[in-house]
């Protein structure tokens, strides 16, 4: 037993707060857009140059001039504003975005993140990921706990090239949730996924972590 993709996204959605400006990465983080609690006002930023992302357009109403950072067609909202990519990343780099929820390939116990390339495979580029983890106030990574082959993706040190060093504040996997102190204070397990035991997560985790389970 472990969390599904939807359950991981739901857990990530708990990190949202009313009035937050949020950037969501592709993959599981995208699901969070549909899980904003009722009555909570959250504004989504798209790093190509938009604040206030709306839902996908109705069939037949897509506008080629209106896409998100994942290059999907989207819509605007009444409060939307558009700006250049330079202004967009000034917003990101300047610490104005409250929260970024991103996917990951590996996270280290120091909060390093690797999510942009695998040596020997074709490198597609980092896009805006390095800017987001360097600039956004709080970075949450959502990823599977283990590789398909069973290796832990939450590691003592990332073996893949880094996206950022000491940049992850919270790691949500299908097995549980870890708080990470970017400033070298290490990782702490704060939640277990439904049906996951402490023994299981200990066995499947390479990173060292403290334990502070409230429930």
């Amino acid at each position, binding site marked *: 037993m472990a969390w599904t993709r939807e359950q991981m996204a739901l857990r990530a959605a708990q990190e949202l707060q009313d009035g937050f400006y949020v950037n969501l990465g592709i993959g599981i983080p995208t699901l969070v857009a549909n899980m904003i609690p009722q009555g909570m006002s959250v504004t989504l930023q798209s790093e190509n140059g938009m604040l206030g992302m709306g839902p996908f357009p109705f069939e037949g109403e897509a506008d080629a*001039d209106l896409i998100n950072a994942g290059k999907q067609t989207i819509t605007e909202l009444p409060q939307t504003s558009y700006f250049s990519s330079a202004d967009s990343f000034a917003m990101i780099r300047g610490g104005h975005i409250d929260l970024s929820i991103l996917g990951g390939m590996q996270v280290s116990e120091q909060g390093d993140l690797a999510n942009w390339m695998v040596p020997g495979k074709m490198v597609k580029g980092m896009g805006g990921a*390095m800017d987001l983890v360097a600039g956004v106030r709080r970075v949450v990574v959502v990823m599977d706990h283990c590789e398909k082959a069973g290796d832990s993706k939450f590691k003592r040190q990332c073996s893949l090239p880094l996206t950022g060093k000491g940049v992850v504040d919270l790691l949500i996997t299908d097995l549980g949730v870890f708080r990470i102190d970017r400033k070298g204070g290490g990782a702490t397990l704060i939640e277990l996924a439904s049906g996951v035991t402490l023994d299981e997560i200990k066995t499947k985790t390479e990173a060292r972590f403290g334990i502070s389970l409230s429930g």
Partner: protein
Amino acid sequence: MKSKIYPDAAAALAGLTFDGMTVMVGGFGLCGIPEHFIAALRDSATKNLTVIGNNVGCDGHGMWQVLANNQIRKVLASYVGENKILETRYMNGEIEIEFNPQGTLAERIRAGGAGIPAFYTRTGYGTAVAEGKETRQFNGEWYVMETGLVADLSIVKAWKADSEGNLVYRKTARNFNPMIATAGKVTVAEVEMMVPVGELDPDQIHTPGIFVDRIVVGQNYTKHIERLTTRPKQATFGGAN
């Protein structure tokens, strides 16, 4: 004053291209790309280009056409997926790619246009992007020094222009175009419509005419969509990303 308006993209590029030149091209993915100038650049058969832009098109579209025509030697970009020819040539060492974080690339272009030769950013510190670059502490945090970028020719796409070269962009088709317009020794712009001088609200001009040397009105825009995502008409609120 000599008119900035040219009859078509080929005429507007005449005399501006040369082998080995550096060209900046606006757009994010296929959104807001200067379609007609890209076709004219392809037809110019200029070789050994260094191309600066967020992407290099994708299979069959955008700057991919210039790439497929063997005109590109080097690329500065942040993301080059969905581009098999580029992948193959890069793996074979036939083309050089300098990957830049998207925000660093945007800021390097802005800096180039703004007379700023270098700046510091946290982005990329401790990663491969910082290798060979100066790193430095300010207020206890580590930063990487990045340099400004300029080009021999900047090519942008806007929505509206007047004959002064004032430009207005539309929605997320703005993206890299405004900075790129400032960073070329020469800047050419293609637009969907010309409006009479005085029709654009002076408070609402995105790129002042000083940055634009030549203007073309593009006909029959393709505006290919890379990832068409929609929701059925009857659906409730269907996802924001």
